[in-house]
């Protein structure tokens, strides 16, 4: 970058920052006005905040449930960084999330803010138990988006309470906090559980995307090996589901995948995208030396590389041949 270009960049950045600072100052003025009105209204209702919070326009606005959503959510967006260090801010967010009488939109925004704060591991540590409690409370919350968010976070942590809730719900022994398909996939994130029966159910009943998810998670279960090979070979199944089956089969049985992938990639009647995915995996992963040592396969690749009726397959075949170690 030339010095002139750098100077122009710096000037442009300074202008951008001046504008941002001016906009922020404007926002702070508006916030103060909103906070003043809030204090007055609260005073007339004989409500109040602790003294120090009452002096803080951001906290005043954030915690006033009589205000519309927008100014409260704006506090989180505009001032979240500077507020995030303060314990009372985190405590206020927890209170908002747990208050079922508060606005769902504000509660969702508060939950996102808590999630962001949770990344600050050391600073957030004192609040972690209360956050975990709040998430567990949300599993039974009347707002679907909040339930879904909490169940998703806890399921990723392999939370045993949530897992048991989902299992009971799937068995019909209790209510499910999320839709059935989502419940199955959330349980599937923990491969220590016996999820294969649920995943088979999902594959039989789901949309293409859900079927793709189900074969993705089947890749954690050796008993699914033959099912996955069958799906990979099934020319009536969608491209993406077959491709994912291939990836899952490769995880469970790389040698078997290699054999099947070689068949599919040289089958001119098969889906070009699936053939391409097989060739890409053969080319880059696993024992590539063994792949190249298979002279019959390499010979067939030479035919494939010249087949312009499947140009993408031909291209990948040419790349594979170009990478042959003996060339």
């Amino acid at each position, binding site marked *: 970058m030339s010095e002139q270009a750098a100077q122009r*960049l710096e000037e442009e950045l300074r202008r951008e920052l001046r504008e941002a600072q001016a906009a922020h100052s404007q926002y702070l003025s508006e916030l103060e006005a909103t906070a003043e009105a809030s204090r007055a209204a609260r005073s007339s209702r004989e409500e109040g905040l602790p003294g120090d919070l009452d002096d803080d326009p951001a906290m005043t606005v954030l915690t006033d449930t009589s205000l519309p959503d927008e100014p409260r959510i704006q506090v989180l967006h505009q001032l*979240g960084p500077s507020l995030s260090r303060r314990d009372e801010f985190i405590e206020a967010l927890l209170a908002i999330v747990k208050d079922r009488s508060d606005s769902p939109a504000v509660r969702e925004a508060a939950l996102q803010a808590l999630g962001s704060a949770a990344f600050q591991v050391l600073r957030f540590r004192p609040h972690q138990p209360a956050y975990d409690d709040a998430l567990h409370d949300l599993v039974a919350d009347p707002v679907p988006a909040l339930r879904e968010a909490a169940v998703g976070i806890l399921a990723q942590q392999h939370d045993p309470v949530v897992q048991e809730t989902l299992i009971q719900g799937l068995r019909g022994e209790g209510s499910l906090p999320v839709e059935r398909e989502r419940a199955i996939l959330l349980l599937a*994130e923990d491969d220590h559980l016996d999820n294969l029966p649920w995943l088979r159910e999902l594959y039989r009943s789901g949309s293409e995307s859900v079927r793709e998810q189900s074969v993705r998670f089947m*890749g954690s279960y050796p008993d699914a090996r033959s099912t996955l090979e069958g799906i990979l070979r099934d020319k009536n199944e969608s491209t993406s589901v077959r491709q994912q089956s291939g990836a899952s089969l490769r995880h469970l049985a790389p040698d078997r995948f290699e054999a099947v992938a070689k068949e599919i990639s040289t089958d001119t009647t098969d889906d070009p995208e699936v053939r391409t995915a097989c060739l890409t995996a053969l080319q880059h992963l696993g024992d590539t030396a063994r792949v190249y040592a298979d002279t019959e396969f390499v010979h067939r690749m030479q035919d494939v590389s010249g087949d312009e009726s499947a140009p993408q397959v031909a291209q990948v075949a040419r790349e594979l041949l170009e990478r042959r170690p003996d060339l």
Partner: protein
Amino acid sequence: MSKPVMVRIRKNANQLSPAERDRFTTTLAKLNDQGAGLFKDFREMHRQQLALAQAHGAPGFLSWHRAYLLDLERELQRLDPSVTLPYWRFDQPAPNLFTADFMGRSGALGNVSFSGTNLLRQWQTDGAAGVTREPGFNVQTGRANVINQAITLLLGGDRPNAIFDTGTDQDGFDEMEFNPHGNAHTSFTGSSYIRSRGTAPRDPLFFLLHCNVDRLWARWQWFHNRFDGTQPNTFFFRGSATSTPHTDIGHNLLDTMWPWNNVTGFPRPDNAPRTPFPQVATATAPGPAPTVGDMIDYLGFLNAQSDMNFAYDVPFGVAPT
């Protein structure tokens, strides 16, 4: 003042050429090697509580992640020297990023789908295939729910715990850890891997997110001339964990950073997945056990030996005025 540079440039992921994109995804997938490759070490470094405490919620956050990214990038470059980490500019729409040919297209219930030629189709972490990612925004036209770059660059002010001081009204550039960093993570919903600190590196998008976090720090450094870690307006806790004042271990200027320092046992984790920091022929920095402070002068403006041979597409090569 300018300096001649031969550096590996990190670019905006949304603007990569197809060839650049494919080299990156192929190389990253090869490093993962369907769960069996070296990538699993990077996964382990960002998983358990004690490991996360080495890198989050204290002033060493930015230095640690700069080292983490550079470590990953150098491993990628062992496989393909032409590859650099791209950054996800999360305060702008990035429609080219969330495609089947790149970081994947999210479908129903968070399933991420990749094209046939995208080797990330073989991605695997923690024994499970694929990625779960549910964007909370329209990936074609929208952006993450974060403060924009200009507001981020304004962060910084006099405070006891601040590590960067611009003298402006807003406090603490390190508060960008909450927003935009934290908000970029939590702009994904449901059970998205990237949404939670313990699972985030299971999604390859995590590294592009953090590359932008590092780019923002780099830009802040350049704009405010913050390359001297011994200055209070660049870093507040300029001693070690036993100095006065000090902060949590691993977050003081002179502290070496886990795992590269191979120090284990509480308050550090019980193991060190990657040690020492990889050395390369094209740069002498950082050393095998980098300190928090070692990561600040990454362009070698103060000390040419500190040059780590990476930079961002804008700006680079020119010292601040």
